[in-house]
């Protein structure tokens, strides 16, 4: 049994705990509870980081020595980590508990799926030759920060569609949140696709091979380009932009999961 797996299983429970912490806050509206929730979020994020580093260190024990970014389990764990990182780094400008609550719920979903699903292989696997490159780190990091930002944009869209009374921030704050997250996500996705292309050039000799993951990431990229265009050039707001951010995230999810499970190709590391 790996120590890192144990740590990450605890982190999963902490996300669940955080979700309930938020519920307690909404029930009591006590600022003390909210402060406590934020401290707990920092602790969870810290332990999550420790879990990732521990897995990296443990991979050396099996004389493989690679960053935990190489298989489906590791990508789920890393996605959860990126979502935490995104909401924490957005805290200064945009802090409202509904966002952190749902972000924790999404992180819980990914972590729970990774830790407790029998179909996800939790073992540390060696790197196949194509992945043995330093481009792996920058490529995966940029892509997953983009995915996490789009998850936040999706939440902003969701909130603005459902418009729950009392717990909701103002419509302007939501728009700002939606725009800001796409503003981070879009350049990050661009960087992810471009670093992937440079890497592919050195690994296989062609920077674009219309692999399903490449094609779908391009579709997602074009979609968010349209989102930004609709906002800036057409002045779309409110419900329409919210719908776009929801559809956009569906495309992200398909790029991430759908391609792994349904279509096979150069990126199908998740397939069982």
């Amino acid at each position: 049994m790996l120590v890192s797996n144990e740590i990450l299983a605890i982190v999963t429970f902490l996300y669940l705990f955080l979700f309930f912490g938020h519920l307690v806050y909404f029930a009591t509206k006590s600022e003390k509870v909210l402060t406590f929730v934020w401290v707990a979020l920092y602790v969870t994020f810290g332990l999550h980081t420790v879990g990732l580093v521990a897995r990296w260190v443990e991979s050396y024990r099996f004389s493989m020595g690679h960053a935990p970014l190489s298989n489906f389990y590791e990508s789920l764990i890393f996605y959860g980590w990126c979502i935490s990182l995104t909401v924490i780094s957005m805290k200064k400008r945009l802090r409202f508990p509904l966002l952190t609550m749902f972000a924790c719920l999404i992180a819980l979903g990914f972590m729970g799926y990774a830790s407790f699903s029998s179909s996800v292989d939790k073992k540390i696997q060696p790197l196949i030759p194509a992945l043995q490159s330093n481009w792996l780190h920058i490529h995966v990091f940029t892509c997953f920060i983009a995915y996490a930002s789009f998850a936040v944009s999706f939440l902003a869209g969701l909130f603005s569609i459902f418009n729950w009374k009392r717990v909701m921030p103002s419509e302007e704050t939501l728009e700002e949140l939606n725009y800001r997250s796409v503003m981070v996500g879009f350049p990050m996705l661009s960087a992810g696709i471009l670093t992937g292309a440079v890497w592919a050039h050195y690994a296989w000799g062609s920077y674009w091979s219309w692999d399903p993951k490449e094609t779908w990431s391009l579709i997602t990229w074009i979609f968010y380009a349209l989102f930004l265009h609709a906002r800036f050039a057409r002045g779309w707001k409110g419900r329409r932009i919210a719908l776009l951010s929801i559809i956009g995230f569906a495309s992200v999810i398909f790029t991430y999961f759908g391609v792994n499970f349904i279509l096979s190709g150069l990126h199908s590391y998740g397939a069982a």
Partner: protein
Amino acid sequence: MASSSVTGLAKGEIKNSVTVRGSKVENKSLGFALKLTDFKVSFYPSGEPKDYVSDVEVLENGKSVLQKSIRVNHPLSYKGVNIYQSSYGSNPAFVLDVGGERVELGLGGVYKKGNLHLMAVRYEKSVHNFGPGILMAYVQENGQPQTSWFLKDVPRLREREILGTTVRLEDIREEFYTGLEVSRDPGVWVVWFGFALILFGLYVNFFLYHRRIYLVEVSKGVLIAGTALKNKEGFKEEFEKLKGRLGCS
């Protein structure tokens, strides 16, 4: 113009041109010769591939000028031609004992000695569930061609007398060959520059923004005002800081 093709090389093989498939199929000279000195595939205990290494030699006028190992993510670049480790495959090689002499034949390979003509014409991984076998063709004394199967796992069918010589199938081995992607792409730097430009453009577009700040002298002092087209929240914050520094209310 970028062009690329995949070429297979067996151990010891030398190539100085590749077939490029574009709008028309043509043979392109590399400008040098490439020799595969060795090809190794290694696997992890789990069966996953660990490394593909093609040891190659670049030959100019028959002389070796460069030796390098081509691996995935580590291409060879020589005179504007990039050579990548792209794929690999294997061909069967048959080890025969022909009257005490050790002979190695590939598929379609021919052995000649005196009036004995042997050719490996077909290979099957499983012949009627009796295991791997090869179909050998030979010429009978009367000049008629004849074929017969040699089965590796069936002792009775492993050896046969042909024209007085005992021919015995010793082993069937797999000979790996490497698949190398050869491409010439002198414009790649333009593409890299374009990539950098896209990222720089995104940075400028999203993270830098125009703002205007007005300072107007009025009878009671100075009026300060500002406007920004984008990033209004960020500008509000910046503006408040500026106001604070100027000691305004």
